[in-house]
């Protein structure tokens, strides 16, 4: 590694190394000095900024440069002291992982001292802030979210940098593999890739679909890894099937993968989401990126993704005389979320790229109903039959 050219990854690692060394050294100096004021400064993405869609990459981006936050010790109040402490703890955890060459998950960091961090979300936000401050993505910090995604289907991972070239084939349902930049994927026989958040994996649909072999990616509602025993389980507020970093990175890798056998033919990318505001927000996250981590979107968005369903208007039109019960009323939170999406997210703007999605949101507001994928179970052929028919139309 010493005599190789500095790849972006090496470059990132140097920056992380330098930042951690500088910060910790600075803190130690300040502590040993009688008049020193140990402090740490983070750059944070501001909350209320304008977003736009980059016409070249098709990703949701922002011009925001963030604002600077400084936490010092002992600080002016309890809150600042706490922030300083957890920032320091987090930096230590990252430094440890970095020196050992291991990857830690945000879960592991949180459960190392849940009482101190307070909630998983605090850790998540802080890790993102640190990555943003250094100017690298989170994977370069050797920190990643506990994988939420499950993959079912046949694909090969090739590590060309390993000696000898290591190839691993997957066909069973596994956790989303960690994607480094050096890995290549081979998905030669695959016709379609479907992201869905309800369990379809158990049915083996990826092998039996009418449209041919495919890959199913499930972002499950519940974390596939059980949390450590003896710790109180916390209901996750994010349990609606929003894709995490590693899932999005994996789908993007599949999307960029060159097809070896037939260069002109590529698999089709679909997403199946609920017909509610969260469903469309998930769709926008896959295709354009998230507003929370806009600086990573150009590496993660999947431009060619298409929506398989579920369209509320189609459900309403197809509702049989006694089937209206399958539809649910919007809650106040749903309506508020739709209005926020319409007003703030450029994906749903009037001059945005997805007028169809915008109208879908507005129809939900007009009719005050939403639909969940569960209603398809009762349709002819069940969920699988419905997906078969939809794919036939779209493929």
């Amino acid at each position: 590694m010493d005599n190789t050219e500095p790849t972006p990854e090496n470059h990132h690692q140097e920056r992380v190394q330098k930042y951690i060394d500088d910060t910790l050294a600075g803190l130690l100096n300040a502590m040993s000095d009688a008049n020193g004021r140990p402090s740490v400064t983070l750059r944070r993405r501001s909350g209320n900024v304008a977003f736009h869609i980059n016409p070249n990459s098709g990703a949701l981006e922002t011009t925001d440069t963030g604002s600077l936050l400084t936490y010092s010790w002992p600080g002016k109040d309890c809150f600042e002291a706490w922030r300083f402490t957890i920032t320091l703890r987090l930096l230590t955890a990252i430094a440890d992982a970095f020196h050992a060459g291991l990857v830690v998950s945000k879960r592991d960091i949180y459960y190392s001292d849940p009482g101190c961090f307070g909630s998983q979300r605090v850790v998540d936000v802080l890790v993102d802030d640190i990555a943003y401050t250094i100017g690298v993505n989170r994977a370069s910090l050797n920190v990643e979210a506990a994988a939420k995604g499950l993959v079912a289907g046949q694909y090969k991972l090739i590590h060309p940098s390993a000696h000898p070239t290591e190839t691993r084939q997957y066909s069973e349902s596994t956790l989303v593999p960690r994607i480094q930049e050096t890995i290549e994927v081979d998905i030669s026989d695959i016709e379609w890739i479907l992201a869905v958040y309800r369990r379809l994996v158990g049915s083996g649909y990826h092998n039996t679909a009418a449209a041919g072999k495919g890959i199913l990616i499930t972002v499950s509602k519940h974390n596939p890894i059980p949390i450590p025993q003896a710790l109180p389980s916390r209901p996750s507020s994010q349990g609606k099937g929003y894709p995490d970093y590693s899932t999005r990175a994996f789908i993007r890798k599949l999307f960029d993968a060159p097809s070896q056998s037939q260069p002109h033919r590529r698999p089709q990318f679909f997403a199946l989401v609920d017909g509610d505001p969260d469903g469309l927000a998930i769709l926008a996250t896959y295709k354009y990126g998230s507003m929370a981590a806009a600086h990573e979107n150009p590496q993660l968005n999947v431009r060619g993704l298409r929506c398989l369903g579920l369209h509320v208007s189609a459900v309403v039109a197809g509702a049989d005389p006694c089937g209206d019960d399958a539809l649910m009323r919007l809650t106040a939170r749903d309506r508020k979320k739709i209005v926020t999406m319409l007003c703030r997210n450029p994906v749903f703007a009037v001059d945005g790229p997805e007028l169809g999605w915008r109208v879908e949101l507005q129809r939900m507001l007009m009719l005050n109903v939403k639909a969940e994928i569960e209603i398809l179970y009762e349709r002819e052929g069940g969920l699988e039959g419905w997906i078969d028919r939809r794919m036939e139309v779209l493929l």
Partner: protein
Amino acid sequence: MALRLFRSSASIPGQWSQLLQNASIAPHAFLRPAISLQIPGILSDIWESVLRAVPKKKTSHMKKRHRQMAGKALKDVKNLNTCSGCGQIKRAHTLCPHCVETHPSDIFSLAVTENQILSVSGASAIKVHSTKNPDFPLVQSIDGAHRAGCHHVVTDRKGSRAVSVGFGGEILVWSCQEGTWSKDDNVPAVDGRGLSDTWAVALSEDGQYLAGVSQDGHIRVWDLNGHAEQIRDYETKGSFGTCIDLSLDGRFIASGHENGSVHIFSTESGRMPFSLSGLVKPVRAVTFSPGGKFLAAAGDSKVIVLYDTSSGEQVASLTGHSAWILSLSWSYTGEYLLSSSFDGKVKVWSIDTKTCVATHSETEKAVWSVKWLPKVGRSEGFATGGASRSISFYREATGG
């Protein structure tokens, strides 16, 4: 269908089905007489015709031609002309689908004045078309009026004031000077209380009073000529208010709610003179007849219910739609009622006979709004707008 019904009625679980099986020793021998004797009630009327049903004879070309010459066949569409905008062929009296992409999004609401029609959609602009000219040219487009789109627009009778409600919850008041609309600065912002969750609105005939129903079921009235103060606040049971209407004489306010209830308030006493029976499923449209004698309500139950406004009695129910009814409009004489549904059907009902006299199905997409146009000469007409994203105009010479 018929056989399946019979089978399901026969397959009583357990002993009964076994008994039945044992009884039919030679099923083929007396299957038919057995059926003709023991037909379940629903089938008994149509069983004969089911047995006698044979494929229809194919209509010969000569027969078709004879019918056509006699004026009985489907008529060719001959009312075509060229669009003055883009030069392509289009049907007369409809907007050109090629060049007048009226709105890039679903049209959610229409409002008519003497000679104009206002339309709002999921896009941000309010479009104004003239109804004086048979080509219905676009006369004004108020761009960027509602950023998140707009779901309701209403006007007063003489066409001097309009009010639009956006998906973002904002209520805008517009005034018209010589056919041009502009934001009314004389009317201060409508009183803020309960404003953001107001959903449907209605304007009184003279444009002075604005009535709105909110998502928590409150009905509020504002005086736009004063300082847009809130002058009334009626409370209902808290179900989402989907639609509202003011009677022409301004004496009654009616609102429809998601739980199926329909409420009438007297504006003088501020009370409910009587409670209405309501519908089972969400109500999506309520409208008073021009004379104020009837109130029509419709929604997901696919039925239009007529109430007598003097007694609150339900006087008729009009059935025929097979999808959710989204909009209702009464003709200016009160003779006809217009309704549109989610499957794109537009129906005209005669109030005298309580029957459907015409059904239009130009589109299969939802028609969100229908409105009668003011009578010009002897002919009456109406406009429809919806998920097809263009406004269609109809002139009704005779029903049929």
